[in-house]
């Protein structure tokens, strides 16, 4: 479904990602893990089209999308829930959700999706007329995830979805992701709670200083000694 080859991205001439190779199969849940500042977000942004790739290939459903502008990747079925949420702070919660469905047309179906999100995160329903920017950190994160799902993506890119979410809810968020995945949506997940992420992932990649240094199934990685030492603090 998604295939990234030799991806290279830089900021103002400084390389942030060099040589990233990864694949996400149809209906799979793939995790991308790594330490702080190693290029996870940059990789996701490049896939979504927010950062231009200097070199390499990004193939989505067998089409090369490297030069497709970000907004045209959405109707193709690609959606990124970005780091730092990037909500429309001055708009209401509901308006944010509606905008998530910008590429969709049928108002009734859109309403259904909104209701689905509301049942998933009841607080959003309660606060649907509050301005997104005044919601608490965790509430905003839920809204960001919800908004991302509104476009009915085929591949969902999630950048640290559990950021700032209370422990009780982290499980719920991850459950939700799994649920979405089981409904046929492929997921590429960047997550810091490694054990939780790798536990639900079909496959995982480890990124270090802009390169993929290790890959394997979730369980393999969890049991790897190097990983335990470097990332799990064991």
């Amino acid at each position, binding site marked *: 479904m998604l295939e990234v080859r030799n991806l290279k991205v830089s900021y103002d001439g400084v390389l942030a990602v060099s040589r990233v190779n990864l694949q996400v199969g149809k209906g799979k849940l793939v995790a991308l893990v790594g330490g702080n500042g190693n290029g996870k977000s940059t990789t996701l942004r490049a896939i*979504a*089209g*927010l950062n231009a790739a200097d070199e390499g290939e990004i193939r989505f459903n067998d089409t090369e999308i490297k030069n497709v*502008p*970000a*907004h*045209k*990747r*959405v*109707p193709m079925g690609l*959606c*990124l829930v*970005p780091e730092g949420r*990037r*909500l*429309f*702070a*001055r*708009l209401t919660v509901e*308006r944010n959700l*509606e*905008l*998530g469905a*910008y*590429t969709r047309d049928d108002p009734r179906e859109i309403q259904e999706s909104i209701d689905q999100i509301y049942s998933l995160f009841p607080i959003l329903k309660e606060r649907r007329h509050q301005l997104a920017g005044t919601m608490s950190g965790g509430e905003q994160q839920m809204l960001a995830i919800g*908004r991302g799902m509104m*476009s009915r993506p085929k591949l969902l890119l999630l950048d640290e979805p559990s950021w700032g979410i209370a422990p009780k809810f982290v499980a719920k968020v991850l459950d939700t992701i799994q649920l979405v995945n089981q409904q046929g949506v492929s997921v590429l997940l960047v997550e810091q709670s490694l054990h939780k992420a790798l536990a639900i992932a079909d496959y995982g990649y480890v990124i270090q200083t802009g390169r993929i240094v290790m890959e394997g199934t979730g369980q393999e990685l969890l049991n790897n000694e190097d990983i335990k030492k470097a990332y799990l603090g064991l």
Partner: protein
Amino acid sequence: MSFEIVLQTLASGLLIGLIYALVAVGLTMIFGVMDIVNFSHGEFLMFGMYSSFWLYALYALDPLFTLPLTALFLFGLGVMVYKLVISKIINAPMVSQLFTTFGLMLLFRGIAQFLWKPDFRSVDKSVVSGGVSVAGFQIGLPQVVAGVGAILVTAGVYLFLTRTKAGAALEATAADKDAARLMGIDSQKMFALAWGIGAACAGVAGALLSTFFPIFPEVGANFILIAFVVVNLGGFGSIIGALIAGVLVGVIEVMGGFLLGPQYKLAIVLALFLAVLMFRPQGLLGKA
């Protein structure tokens, strides 16, 4: 001072205020969506006036009938300005944006002077001319038509922004253009649209003005300061705010000038404007 004079003054203020509103709507729209202050907005107005004038002078078409054409022409101009210039400075610091639109202002004036000479022109025989006298006071017919036009256009823009999908997309782009792209919104297109509509509003205002205001390359200078005050007073980005503020400014200007001395009419408007900002730093209808 008689009651009639008060009524008369109010009416005149209201009518010119509606024009201010229309000029300001375009400005506030561009600001609201892009956070860019367009110094060259008065020149869009000027181009609108010249467009009406030339259609009138060359083909004897009345500005009122060519209004859609003028609007279309200015829309195109706005889009073109966006594509050629503004799109390159979206991420630049606020001051360089000011600088660019200021340069555009000078450029447009220079171009107008180059193409059409510094002469004053006017549309002398419009289908609407002269005045009507209602209940003892007189108002100019062109002004009335312009006022009605201003209300219609403002309402149209408002409905477009609040009731259509494109309006929502504009709003989203305004809030966070990267996030909007992630929703599948073509932010470039939205910005171009904002400039198109903004310029078209100014163009329509110019067309409506051309039936009673002299036309010359620097005419924008007469309106731009007032337009800025109106946009601010209404709250940057607020269409309804611009409408209310426009009328308010028009009435205060005429009334204040009449009561306290015409030489201070602008000072009165500005002072009241500052006073309002002290209590509502975000303007009347602006969001904090």
